[in-house]
């Protein structure tokens, strides 16, 4: 999926996360900010990278500000931000890429 514009999803509220996806010239860059980065940093990155891979995102700058989100929340916020950034809203392939 091609990232065409900058988009954001999620909030900064407790148990949520805010994900920003921006176009990039090459590769995937992931920046993470979290109060629990020492405990869960690796897991959050893993969930985010898996989600990006499943969506076929090859080039993007992704930033996650985590406020203690569960894996399912992180996945959903990444998916939503990517869909918006790829101008793909309204034609989401439920059960396909999003599952």
């Amino acid at each position, binding site marked *: 999926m091609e990232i065409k514009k900058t988009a*954001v999803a999620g909030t*900064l509220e407790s148990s949520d996360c805010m994900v920003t996806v921006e176009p990039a010239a090459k590769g995937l860059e992931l920046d993470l*900010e979290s109060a629990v980065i020492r405990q869960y940093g690796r897991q959050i990155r893993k969930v985010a990278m898996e989600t990006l891979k499943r969506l076929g995102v090859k080039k993007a700058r992704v930033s996650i500000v985590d406020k203690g989100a569960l894996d399912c929340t992180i996945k959903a916020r990444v998916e939503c931000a990517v869909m918006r950034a790829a101008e793909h809203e309204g034609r989401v392939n439920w059960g396909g890429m999003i599952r």
Partner: protein
Amino acid sequence: MGIGIYSPPLSARQKEEYLQLLEACGLRDEGDADIIALMTEDGRLIACGALAGHTVKQLAVSSDAEGQGAMAAVLSALIAEAYAAGIHRLFLCTKPENLSMFRSMGFHSVIETKDAVLLENRKGGLDGFLASIPKYDGVCGAVVCNCDPFTLGHRHLIEYAAAHCDSLYVFAVSEKGSMFSPEERLEMIRKGTADIENCHVFESDLYLISRATFPAYFIRDESRADLVKSDLDIELFCRRIAPALNISIRFAGEEPFSPVTRAYNERMKELLPAYGIRFEEIPRFAEISAGKVRTLIEAGEPEKTGEMVPESTYEVIQRRS
């Protein structure tokens, strides 16, 4: 509990509650908000915030609602609105004691003074901006100007400045909200100085004289020039920009008309020398001011501006009228 997004003006009742909340938090309404977010609980205002251009401001939470995530909710709503409007770069100015809270919300410090901190939502934004600007040898000077529009007065200032240093950086204010767009102003400055070899024109990328660094400049409440706070802007220039670009002289035009700009010049005169930067104020050239040019344009007499602006600016004025 819910958050409403409003375009000013607010209703009388909303405004009253909004002003009360700001006052209780030691803030005042600066009146330049594009949108205002109000969070209410049982019909009572418990938190608010506003967006003015690229700047998040007027963030306040009532004391009895603190610690319940109201600030996070209001900030989230404002960020969502900004992105939806295509504004991706956001700045925020706060007291130093709030720094860690906003850091945990994805903001990064740009400059810290003893009373205030400027943050932005992009990591290393200022470093990236400075890295994008070429470095020159010898004595480097700087002019920061809005040039709304670029007049013979600006030309005079830049000519003088370029003659008094080896390389001159001219930073065009990149904030919107002037009569001419940032792109038009940049074009006017570039064309109007194209023949000055050691003059190099750049966008200020919101790091110099922007609604984030120096809000008073854009609010133009001339009656309250005594309250003008420009230290953040000046310290950002002195501590981050000037050292990176080896700038040792800042030139500015003398300001007989605008109290806000005059107060800014006065403050530069006080602060710059401590950082080893010389401040030079150049007397105004032939009573020309961009304000007079704008007045003529607004009065529908753009043809009368010909004597005050260079050819290249006159073309831009004619193009728009």
